[in-house]
């Protein structure tokens, strides 16, 4: 009965209760790490990193913009992979992670767009240009909004999870195609005259704080995802004994 054994392990991993308890132990450390990295990265990036030769101080917004764009895209993959796991192995926890990942990803995408627009004003003299990256980011936001809207329009949670898992998988397959198309479209219409300060070609003094910020954002994303998933776990498992006992113990 080796099959039985492996399932047991899998179910333990997928048990919302196990997740809730384990994540509870990790969460304080992870939050501290995220806060620490973000504080160090922000101080370093905003106060100590040298000015950009062309853009002056306005370039410093990349310390928010770049990590947010990274996580916006990575978050979609997290969501889609969680959806796939939920779809294939019928793991409830994966469904919950998928549902929780969608709004976080959408917010990060929005932050990336807004910071991009703010950065655009001093750089290009306008808040919005139909640049390839901005347009791709906008499409990514649409993809997130589609998944969220689908998630909330089903009355049955199980059906909602399955449907949005299918949609996020389709989206995941399409993201590279969309990005490539938008890139091609952009070079066709506007030969790239304005180049972004590419991260690898940056001066190390500017690049190191960015690296810290990216790490900090990853940790922050993990914290946000775990917190959101914990709320989802409690909501969906509210009828079970362990949640009721937990609530009772917190209330007294």
């Amino acid at each position, binding site marked *: 009965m080796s099959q039985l054994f492996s399932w047991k392990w899998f179910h333990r991993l997928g048990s919302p209760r196990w997740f809730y308890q384990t994540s509870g132990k990790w969460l304080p450390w992870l939050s501290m790490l995220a806060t620490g990295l973000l504080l160090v990265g922000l101080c370093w990036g905003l106060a100590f990193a040298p000015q950009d030769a062309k853009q002056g101080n306005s370039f410093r917004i990349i310390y928010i913009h770049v990590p947010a764009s990274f996580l916006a895209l990575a978050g979609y993959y997290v969501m889609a992979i969680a959806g796939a796991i939920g779809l294939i192995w019928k793991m409830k926890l994966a469904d919950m992670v998928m549902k929780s990942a969608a709004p976080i990803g959408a917010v990060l995408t929005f932050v990336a767009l807004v910071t991009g627009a703010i950065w655009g004003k001093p750089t290009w003299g306008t808040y919005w240009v139909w640049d390839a990256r901005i347009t791709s980011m906008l499409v990514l936001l649409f993809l997130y909004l589609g998944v969220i809207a689908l998630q909330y*329009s089903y009355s049955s949670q199980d*059906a909602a999870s399955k449907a949005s898992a299918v949609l996020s998988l389709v989206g995941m397959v399409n993201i590279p*195609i*969309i990005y490539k198309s938008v890139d091609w479209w952009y070079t066709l219409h506007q030969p790239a005259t304005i180049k972004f300060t590419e991260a690898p070609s940056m001066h190390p003094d500017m690049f190191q704080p960015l690296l810290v910020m990216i790490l900090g954002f990853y940790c922050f994303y993990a914290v946000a995802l775990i917190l959101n998933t914990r709320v989802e776990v409690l909501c969906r498992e509210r009828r079970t004994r362990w949640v009721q006992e937990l609530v009772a113990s917190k209330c007294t």
Partner: protein
Amino acid sequence: MELGFSAIFRRDLLLAFRHRAEIANPVIFFLIVVTLVPLGLTPEASRLAEIAPGILWVMALLASLLSVEGMFQSDYRDGTLEQMIILPQPLYLMVLAKILVHWLVTGLPLTLLAPVLGMMLSLPEAGYLPLVFSLLMGTAVLSLVGAIGAALTVALKKGGLLLSLIVMPLYMPALIFGASTVQRAVDGFSVDGPLAVLGALLAFSLLVSPFATAGALRVSMHG
């Protein structure tokens, strides 16, 4: 297992013929929205010619989008969908047959009407053939991609707007390459590249979409 494919194909064609008034709707929609452009913008031929490739493609996309909602709706409501799901035949092929019929009754008429509308928008002469070819392949991509959205929202009471929301971002590559095929032709460049990409998009969505659509239809049984 060709049986399910051909049976569904023939049945849906027959049904489309019985509802032939509905076939005209996307085509009329296409005609009307294109008419709105000179009214809202300018009747000046040179300016219309400038934007004609993009406008024609965007409007064709919208017309196709509006018709995609009905692809599985009647099957879901009358119970033939649940019968299809439990047939001893691959659902993949039956879905493909339905998509093909959808394209034949919407994408193809839209494509055939497009040159006429191109003329009304003073599309330069070089643009007509690329317009037809790009729409021929592009509308097939739109039907295939739209089918996924239609299947995901078929169990919902008010799925229409949501369907547009989830499908339109996925339409963008087809729009980009379709519209630029026409634009490049008008500008005097070779259109082989974008047409080849459209063909690749078509092949890819032929592979992926019936599979995803079949999965989404099975999900709708849970709804």
